[in-house]
């Protein structure tokens, strides 16, 4: 039986919550590839804090939450929640935008309201 799209979405979000909320605490804290190369080749000192580095959520830590496991976990859950709103919203808007205002129009042809549309509609 084919699994429904919303079941897959649910499973995917559950995996994301566990990854960002729980597993993230165990992620390697070693410098990443770019950082390491920048250290070894003498340009790491050029790095500057970004303008919003004083945010209470900066660097995946919640200001005031002492427990590091809780702090990074909450950041992960917050990030997943914000991502759900922003990403689902954006792609919903984009998919919605492909539909022309005419509710009767269907399929790919209606996407391009070129001069031949009228002719095509007449021959169909």
């Amino acid at each position, binding site marked *: 039986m084919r*699994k429904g*799209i*919303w079941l*897959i*979405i649910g499973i*995917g*979000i559950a995996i*994301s*919550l566990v*990854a*960002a909320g729980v597993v993230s605490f165990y*992620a*390697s*804290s*070693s*410098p*990443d*590839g*770019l*950082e*390491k190369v920048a250290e070894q*080749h*003498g*340009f790491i000192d*050029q*790095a*500057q*804090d*970004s*303008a*919003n580095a004083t*945010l209470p*959520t*900066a*660097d*995946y*830590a919640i200001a005031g939450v002492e427990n590091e496991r809780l702090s*990074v976990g909450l*950041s*992960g859950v*917050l*990030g*997943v929640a*914000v*991502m*759900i709103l922003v*990403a689902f*919203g*954006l*792609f*919903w808007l*984009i*998919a919605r*935008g*492909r539909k022309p205002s005419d509710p009767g129009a269907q*399929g*790919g*042809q209606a*996407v*391009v309201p070129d001069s031949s549309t009228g002719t095509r509609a007449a021959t169909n």
Partner: protein
Amino acid sequence: MHATSMHIPDGFINAPVSALAWAIAIAGLAVCIWGARRQLDEKTAPLAGLIAVFVFAMQMLNFPVAAGTSGHLLGGALAAILVGPYAGALAVSVVILVQGLLFADGGLTAMGLNIINMGLVTAVVGWFVFRLVVRLAGTSRPAVLAGAFLAGLIAVPVSALVFVLEYAIGGTGTINLGTVLAAMTGVHVLIGIGEGIITALTVGAVYLARPDLVYGLHDRSRAALEIRSAASTPAAESGSGPSQQPSGTVGG
């Protein structure tokens, strides 16, 4: 302390080149929105949203790659294979935007560079590698897994090479380009192995559950073009004539 995650911080690349990168990134995103509008429908739009959420979560999981060095998924190849290159690049760009604005991860000035390197470049490279592999090797499960692995493996060092190019043009420090190029390539091939494994596991899972949702196996943008061109060439309407099949179409 969570490692800053493979994002270019402010200060590495000078202001003019960072501004130029922002302009290129915005133009690229505009193209992606235009393309995604053609490729997404009611079924795939939520999937694209899920991929963005998933890539955000996976980017928090730095894995060790060598002595004292880590890496994490970039996700462009994974996203492009599952929801197409346009929506895929958009998905990773949304991740970079949220990371930069909410968690101060990656510079704001440098965000255009990060969108180009991690969003646009990895999606485009990953897409073409995957399409090439399934065109050559078919759409069996091993071929799809191999294609996804290679897409991730190759996309990451290419992204690193683009960074070196950006540094060569607008870097603020004095470096030996040759040695930095070699070092960046070396470490990012190792990170690319991790990227390839995660990409193959994820694409493999979706392929098992719902192979019809793997966009890279069913390029609907070509189908849409076929439908549109059918207006002028009625013979192509059925899409079943062998001579009408575009060479890039794979799978069912």
